[in-house]
C-alpha cells in the first residue's frame, strides 16, 4: 500500500487555482523530491496533505486515513518552510512537548538532539539560536516518533554544506527504515543523487513524476561531450566530429542518447590526438528548467 496517495487534487482560493489536478503516490521507503518555482503549489499541496487546508476537489489519503485525522497526524513528521518556535523555550523542553504529543519517550528526544548536533545547546533558549540551529530543531521534531511519512518543506535552507550532507544521511536512514519521504527544495544539485524520484510542479500542475534517468529520456535533452585534443589541429577534429571549438585544444559536442555510442566510437577512432573525453548527461537543473517552463509552453 502507498503511504501517501494523492488523486486528482485541486485547490482554489477564490478565482486563483493554486493546485490543479495533481496525482502523486509515495511508497514506503521512497524518497521523492517535489520541485517547482515559488508559487507553483508545493506548499499548498503539503498543507493539504497535513489537513491544514481542505482540498477543493480530489482525494488524499495518508496510510489509508484522511488528512488531518488523528491517525494521519500521528504518522506524519513535518518540517515547515521557515520553521518558527517560541523563543522563550529551550530545544529540549519543546521537543519533549512534541514527543509527548506523538507518544515518543524523552530518551528519543535526547538521541535526536544528539543526531542533529544540538546536544550542547539543548538547554539554551531557542531565541539565542542561529537560523541553522533552529532548522536543526525543526528537523529533530520532524523525525520524532519515527514517522511513516516525512514531509520536508525546504529542509536544507539555512544549513551549511556539511550540515546539508548530514541531513541527507538522516533522510537516507529514515527511508531505509520504511518511511516515505516527500521533500521540496530549490537546491537541485544536492537532490540529484539523494532522491529516488522527482516530481515537478509548475503553475499548480504536476508536469513530471519519474526517476531521474526516465525524466532524461522523456525530455530528450542532449548529452554534452567535452573532447580535449593533444595536437594543434583542433579545428580539423572539430570539423570531423561536427562540434564547436572552445579554445585551442577543446571541442564541445552534443548528441542524443541513441547516438552516444556511435559518436564515442568516432572519437576513439581519432587515436592519440584525443587526450580526454568528458561526458555529461542533462543535470537536474536543466531537466527542471525544461519541465517547469518549456514543456508547459
Amino acid at each position, binding site marked *: 500500500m502507498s503511504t501517501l496517495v494523492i488523486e486528482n487534487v485541486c485547490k482554489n482560493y477564490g478565482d486563483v487555482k493554486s493546485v490543479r489536478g495533481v496525482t502523486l503516490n509515495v511508497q514506503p521507503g521512497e524518497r521523492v523530491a517535489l520541485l517547482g518555482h515559488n508559487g507553483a503549489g508545493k506548499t499548498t499541496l503539503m498543507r493539504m496533505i497535513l*489537513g491544514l487546508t481542505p482540498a477543493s476537489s480530489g482525494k488524499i489519503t495518508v496510510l489509508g486515513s484522511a488528512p488531518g485525522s488523528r491517525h494521519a497526524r500521528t504518522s506524519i513528521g513535518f518540517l515547515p518552510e521557515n520553521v518558527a*518556535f*517560541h523563543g*522563550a*523555550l529551550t530545544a529540549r523542553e519543546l521537543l519533549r512537548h512534541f514527543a509527548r504529543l506523538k507518544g515518543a519517550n524523552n530518551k528519543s528526544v535526547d538521541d535526536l538532539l544528539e543526531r542533529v548536533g544540538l546536544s550542547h545547546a539543548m538547554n539554551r533558549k531557542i531565541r539565542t539560536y542561529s537560523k541553522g540551529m533552529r532548522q536543526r530543531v525543526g528537523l529533530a521534531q520532524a523525525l520524532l516518533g519515527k514517522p511513516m511519512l516525512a514531509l520536508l518543506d525546504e529542509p536544507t535552507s539555512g544549513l551549511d554544506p556539511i550540515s546539508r550532507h548530514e541531513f541527507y544521511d538522516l533522510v537516507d536512514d529514515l527511508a531505509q527504515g520504511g518511511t516515505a519521504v516527500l521533500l521540496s527544495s530549490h537546491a537541485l544539485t544536492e537532490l540529484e543523487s539523494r532522491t529516488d524520484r522527482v516530481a515537478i510542479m509548475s503553475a499548480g500542475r504536476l508536469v513530471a513524476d519519474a526517476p531521474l534517468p526516465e525524466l532524461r529520456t522523456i525530455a530528450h535533452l542532449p548529452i554534452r561531450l567535452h573532447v580535449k585534443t593533444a595536437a594543434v589541429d583542433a579545428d580539423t577534429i572539430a570539423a570531423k566530429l561536427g562540434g564547436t571549438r572552445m579554445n585551442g585544444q577543446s571541442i564541445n559536442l552534443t548528441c542524443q542518447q541513441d547516438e552516444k555510442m556511435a559518436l564515442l566510437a568516432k572519437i576513439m577512432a581519432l587515436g592519440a590526438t584525443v587526450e580526454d573525453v568528458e561526458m555529461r548527461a542533462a543535470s537536474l537543473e536543466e531537466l527542471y528548467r525544461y519541465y517547469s517552463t518549456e514543456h508547459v509552453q
Partner: protein
Amino acid sequence: MTSILSVTRLELLIARRNMWVATSIILMALFTTVLTLAGGAPSGTLGVEPLTLAVTSITTLSVYLVPLIGLLLSFDAIVGETERGTLALSLTYPLSRGEILLGKFVAHFLVLAVAIGVGLGITVALSIWQAGTTDMNYLPVLKLFATAMALGAAFLGIGYLVSALVRQTGVASGIVIIVWLVCVVLYDLGLLGALVADNGGTFTKLVFPWLLVANPADAFRLINMPTENLAVLSSGIGAAAGASDTLQQLLSLLLWPVLALFLAWLAFRKVEP
C-alpha cells in the same frame, strides 16, 4: 488528557519566562497590600472588622484588575501563534484545537489563581497582623477568591475569542483594551444614564436587572458586596444590588467562562494557520 497537560506545561513555562506570572502577582500583591493597609483608615479603631473592609476595597479593585490580567494573558494566545508561525506546526501533531485551547486556558487560569491567591493571602495576613484572629470572618475572602477566578476565566475566554477572530496581534491588543473599557467602565455609565433617562419606568423594572447581571464584572461586584451601605460607598451602580438576586449573579459568573470559551473554540476552529 496528556496532550492538554503538555500544552499547559509549555504555556506555564512561557508565562513564567515572559514575566506574565511575575507581573500579575506583583500587580495584585501591590494593590491588595495598599488597600488592606489604607482600607482601615476610615473605619478607625472602632470600625468594621478589617477583613470585611479590605474585601470591599479589593472587590472594587478586582473589577478592574482581574479582567485586565485575564485579557492580557489571553489576547496573544491564538493570533500570536498564527503570526509567529508556530500554530501550523502544532496543528500537524495529533492534537485537537479544543485541546490546545483548554491547555492554554488551564495554564492561564493557574497564573490567575496564583496572582489572586497571593494578593488575598497578603490581605488575610495583614488583617490578622492588625486585628488578630478573633472575630475574623474568612468566608467573604473565599467567596471573593472563587468569584474573582470565575471573572478572570470569563475574560480569559473573551481574550481567546478576540485572539481567534483577528489576524494581527496589534489589532487583538487594541480590541481587548476596548472590551475591558466597555465592560468595567462604560457599561455601568451607560446603564446609569439609561436609569436616569427612564426615571423609574419599564426599563428600570424589567430590563435593567437583567442587563446588570449580564455583565460579569457587575455580577462579580454585586455578589461580593457585604452590605448595601458599603455597596453605596464603593460604587454608584452597586446601590442597585437589590435589583438582582445572588442566584442570577452566580449564574452569570459561571456561564460567562463557559460561553466565552465555547465561542472562542468555534472561532478557533475556523482559523487557517
